[in-house]
């Protein structure tokens, strides 16, 4: 299945190693959260790039102490209508400031891409013909958003505020509710 990274087909350099299986001596290895939590010292000390795969019921906060040393986090959509991984991605990006790859796995369908991208996914494993074109289309289907999210799009509320400030440049009031 093709891997899209930032919308372009990319080689998948990550090897997922099941719990109990032996780790290769080097390279990009991804393990489960449970394995990472017990073996992180060896993993991070070795000649590896380390990735972690989270079940969608697991707490991404458990990775907090090591986030700057983790190269990839794979999140799962067991069914595409199950949106738990969207919250996990938002937490990783906006709460914990994680900046490396967040990968969507499982049932990744084109009509969900926009939600995933906005929630912070930058890599998708997607079973879709013409995946790059579909990605380009789906990620630009909407040009306006009310919510701030993990992507950097300016929100409608921010654009309105900018428009007001252009009109009233002396207005110093800041972002207080009433």
């Amino acid at each position, binding site marked *: 299945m093709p891997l899209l990274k930032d919308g372009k087909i990319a080689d998948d350099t990550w090897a997922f190693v099941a719990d109990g299986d032996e780790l290769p001596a080097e390279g990009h290895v991804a393990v489960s959260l449970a394995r990472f939590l017990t073996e992180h010292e060896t993993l991070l000390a070795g000649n590896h790039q380390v990735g972690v795969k989270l079940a969608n019921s697991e707490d991404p906060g458990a990775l907090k102490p090591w986030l700057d040393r983790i190269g990839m986090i794979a999140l799962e959509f067991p069914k*595409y*209508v*199950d*949106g*738990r991984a*969207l*919250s*996990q991605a*938002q937490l990783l990006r*906006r*709460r914990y400031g994680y900046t490396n790859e967040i990968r969507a796995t499982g049932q990744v*369908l084109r*009509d*969900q891409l*926009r*939600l995933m991208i*906005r*929630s912070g996914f930058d890599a998708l494993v997607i079973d879709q013909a013409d995946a790059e074109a579909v990605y380009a289309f789906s990620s630009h*289907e*909407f*040009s*306006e*958003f*009310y*919510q*701030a*999210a993990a992507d950097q799009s300016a929100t*409608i*509320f921010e*654009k*309105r*505020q900018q428009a*007001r400030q252009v009109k009233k440049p002396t*207005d110093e*009031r*800041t*972002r*207080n*509710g*009433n």
Partner: protein
Amino acid sequence: MYRYDEFDETLVRERAKQFRGQVERRLKGELREEHFKPLRLQNGVYLQLHAYMLRVAIPYGQLNAKKMRQLAYVADKFDKGYAHFTTRQNVQYNWIKLAEMPDVLDVLADVEMHAIQTSGNCIRNVTSDHLAGANLDEIEDPRPWCEIIRQWSTFHPEFSSLPRKFKIAVTAGETDRAAVRVHDIGLHMKKNAEGRIGFEFIVGGGLGRTPYIGLTTREWIAKEDLLSYLEANMRVYNRHGRRDNKYKARIKILVNELGLAEYSRQVEEEFAAQNTWEKVVLPQEEVERITAYFAPPKFQTLPVVSSAFEAFKAGGREQARWAKNNLRPHRAPGYISVHIALKPQGVAPGDATSDQMRAMADIGEQYGLDDIRVAHEQDVVYPHVKLDDVPAVYAALKAAGLHASNAGMGSDIIACPGLDYCNLSNARSISVANEIQAVFADPEFEDEVGTLHVNVSGCINACGHHHVGHIGILGVDKKGEEFYQVLFGGRADEKATIATIQGPGLKHEEVAPAIRRVIGKYLELRREPTEKFIDTMGRLGQAPFKEALYASA
């Protein structure tokens, strides 16, 4: 009323275009029904017994003449000339072809309307008090906050694949006309000790298979914290709500299984952990911009008493009765709010023909400051009418067959579509509602009985809100035969209560006579004519009424 700016407009147009693409892919077979289903659902398209149904959003029930006329046009051009107003302040069409749905969305977008998030497992159309801005007892107009919530929740990237549907209601009246305690989240605008207006935050109410009254998690939350606090609640629900069983997936089950204390602890922890850039706080100017659209209209200075209105009430029994039952007090002297009860005898509750919709538009434009609302009782309401104009309004309503004078009375029944349209139903609900209406066919008898809420659902999904009817009727299927369980004592207002099932189900033809006996018992037992059915039942308990219910069965 709120008006779209370029951003709101762009979003709704882009949505219509997106759905057109999805329908095309579906019709070409590129998109499987299994994968199309959640997409169409998030756009209000259901596959019903006979055809596709389209549910159009009427955010917090707010319409004007132009929108109402467009809804009539849709009924004529794409449906069979009528529409159905729902208990969620929306409107439904039962006979629209899938291939034509995208055209309908374009037509709706022309008048700033859409079907976004009217179904599916997302944050649904926010509902409110249909008398907002007109009634006597609210501390502030709740509609600006409804609009703010509408915008915040539209295509929310994190909360569009929730465990289950999510309904939010806002009220600001002392009397709760929005049933906020039976919503996933209910917001009741209140003052705190310093006199600042904020929200009582109520979570986990809901009807359906397991009805719950919502619980207060915060007695008061400030306006500037509202959206961030909503996000904290939604995130806890999205992460931890059950997904293994759709009947246990609503937030009420999560709150119940965790317990109020633990649920609140998780929400407060999430709320406290939000970084400043995660907070959702609108600039004060934006709150003011949105609020300005709901500024009170310029009411004329009028005397409290209108001689034209007094003469109208004295002018005949039928219109006197309509004036007594269908009008609600207004805060401005010389004004009143008018209920159009869409439940004349023998019609499916909430149905209106396109001609009637156009008449409602014309009357609202001419006499109602162009403000038209849909109430959760499936009524249409003109919040602002001059007493002097009431005779003309009545005459025009009567000409359109919209002068049913039963608002709030026994025959003003809330009923779901039931077996006639709904493929989940166990039993007919419209016909049983019609038979109960016939019990109250004599207006004098109906007035003698007074305020009474009868709610009918065709199955345990409870779209007819049977749990909160003074009398609730629930259709069940027993070995292929329709039976009806009867419930007593529910209410949806600020004293929200879940009704109690009385006992074995009745056959279709037994229901109306049994209700007649219960009413007879009430008339016999009430202390005085002003004691309402629900209050007599509250005073004496349900036992005597249950006895009457089963008296001849």
